[in-house]
């Protein structure tokens, strides 16, 4: 299923506002993600990046604002959206295998009560192969390295066969092998016309890995193509002047971020 609605945004969140107690975490934030792009969400700690992702997914209820996926409310389009949570959000000592975790991505298609069968398992096996983890299918998940666990989570999202992939820090604490595997995967998804939104921490790789960027610090500071938006000026606005000379399009000297 490939959606050919070129002028409709893959994800469009408007006026999202969310507060814990009295402290605003997101203030009037828009998120506009065209179809077929790789978009990074960038901002300092506590800027609301994860909160934004979780709000888009309906895991948090915003005080105001709405989320549309391909023009319709998120609740109706859930099947088109896959989620890759932060690796640290679950207990990896849970008694199960890598393949079983990936199979969980097929549950939404099964409906209530029905158990996954041979066809679900073979789809899960294929997804594991896509992230180079087929050899680890029967491994207990606590015996996987951090990067391998991250790839298992990615495979679980792949098996959902969604149009939009929302990822929370997919590059967090992974080794070089996994980082390469993820980058290749992101590009393969883009080539397939899929859309990826990822919370990203490493400013130095934003321009290399992503097409678009949303700079966030409680408010949306700037958003658009990396070449236009990912400038020193915007980064200073986002990080409050704590970033010295990041490589914008015109600046290739000091690549240093202080977070």
């Amino acid at each position, binding site marked *: 299923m490939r959606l050919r609605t070129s002028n409709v945004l893959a994800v469009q969140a408007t006026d999202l506002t969310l507060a814990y107690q009295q402290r605003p975490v997101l203030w009037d934030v828009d998120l506009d993600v065209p179809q077929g792009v790789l978009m990074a969400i960038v901002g300092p700690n506590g800027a609301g990046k994860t909160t934004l992702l979780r709000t888009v997914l309906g895991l948090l209820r915003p005080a105001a604002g709405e989320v549309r996926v391909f023009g319709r409310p998120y609740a109706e389009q859930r099947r088109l959206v896959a989620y890759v*949570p932060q690796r640290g959000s679950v207990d990896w000592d849970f*008694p*199960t295998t890598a393949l079983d975790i990936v199979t*969980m991505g097929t549950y*939404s298609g099964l409906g209530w009560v029905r158990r996954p069968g041979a066809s679900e398992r073979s789809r899960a096996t294929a997804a594991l192969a896509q992230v180079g983890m087929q050899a680890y299918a029967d491994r207990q998940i606590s015996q996987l390295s951090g990067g391998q666990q991250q790839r298992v989570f990615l495979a679980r999202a792949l098996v959902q066969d969604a149009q939009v992939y929302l990822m929370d820090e997919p590059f967090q604490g992974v080794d070089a092998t996994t980082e390469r595997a993820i980058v290749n995967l992101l590009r393969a998804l883009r080539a397939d016309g899929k859309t990826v939104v990822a919370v990203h921490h490493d400013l130095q790789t934003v321009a290399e890995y992503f097409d678009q960027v949303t700079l966030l610090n409680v408010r949306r500071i700037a958003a658009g193509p990396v070449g236009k938006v990912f400038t020193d000026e915007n980064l200073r606005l986002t990080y409050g002047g704590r970033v010295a000379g990041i490589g914008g399009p015109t600046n290739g000297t000091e690549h240093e971020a202080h977070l």
Partner: protein
Amino acid sequence: MDVLSDLFLDYTLRTVALGSAALGIVSGALGAFAVLRRQALLGDAMSHAALPGVALAFLITGSRAPLVLMIGAALTGWLAAVAIVYIVRASRTNTDTAMALMLSVFFGAGLVVLTFIQRQPAAGKAGLDKFLFGQAAAMLESDVITMASVGAVGLLGVLVLWKEFKLLSFDPDFAATLGMPTRRLDMLLTSLLVIAIVVGLKTVGVVLMSAMVVAPGAAARQWTNRLGVMVTLSALFGAAAGVLGALLSTTAQTSTGPTIVLVATGLVVVSLLFAPTRGLVWTRMHAWRSQRILALEAVMSDLAALAAQHSSDATRPHDVAALHAVRGRALVDRALSELAADGLAQRHDGGGWSLTPRGLAEADRLARLRRAPSDFL
């Protein structure tokens, strides 16, 4: 020892064994999920909170029928769970505090009602105090039938919603993004846990029932890395602890609840110590063995480095005093004698040591292995 033959002949013992097996299976299976969801203490709070339900059910209906008392127990136990969730969500009280608070409030209320009942002249009040520490000996066939049927509802729930409960336990956020009603599933699983608790209440008692929820699951986790196996094992451990404990307490005339709990704890201790891979004994042995292997490799690479300095004669003897100084005499000497026994190192006449040609090859292989990028990274 003819308890075993009595088991098949004696009506009371057979009833006790069957009932305890039923309660153990149900609390073991559902307790496994409680352990995985880190809700062990919630089980404790709910079982204590069941006491006022038992007492009030008797007070209101005047009946001691097992089903009536179970329904009362389930209602207040469930109410306590809801109260805990609500307090945590609505105030800034943390889960720990909310659970301790509800446990003592409900248990206190239960004791008050219980003592009130004790002072009444009404007939048939006897036996309610047994709900504190449990009593297996008084179990009737009708009790067993009620326990088994109520428990079957709990087990059926787990079987039917297996994949939903698995995902809810591992990654509730992901479950929510799939469109699963995670809050309602959470409530349902907690309610099934309440069922497991009330099934065992009269036999084990409210004070120690939580041990029957936690112990079998904790023990089962040690032996397997599969959820299905863990839940099955947990049910079997629960049944074993229930039957053994109930029979022991009936023959030795001790309190049933504490005896069952002691047996269950025994299973936990054995599992924590001796389970392969996760057991303490196994991990210690493993650590000790890998330390020894590391010491062997270190000494081999030291000797290989010394040999490399004299490329003309690789098996020329070296004084190991330097190795003693760096790595410690005991470690080096033990490693050298093990290497010699394996034919990898040799002692020369003057007291010096060198690797054998085979040892040199092995050291070279290890060095190459260590340089290669590990696939584990």
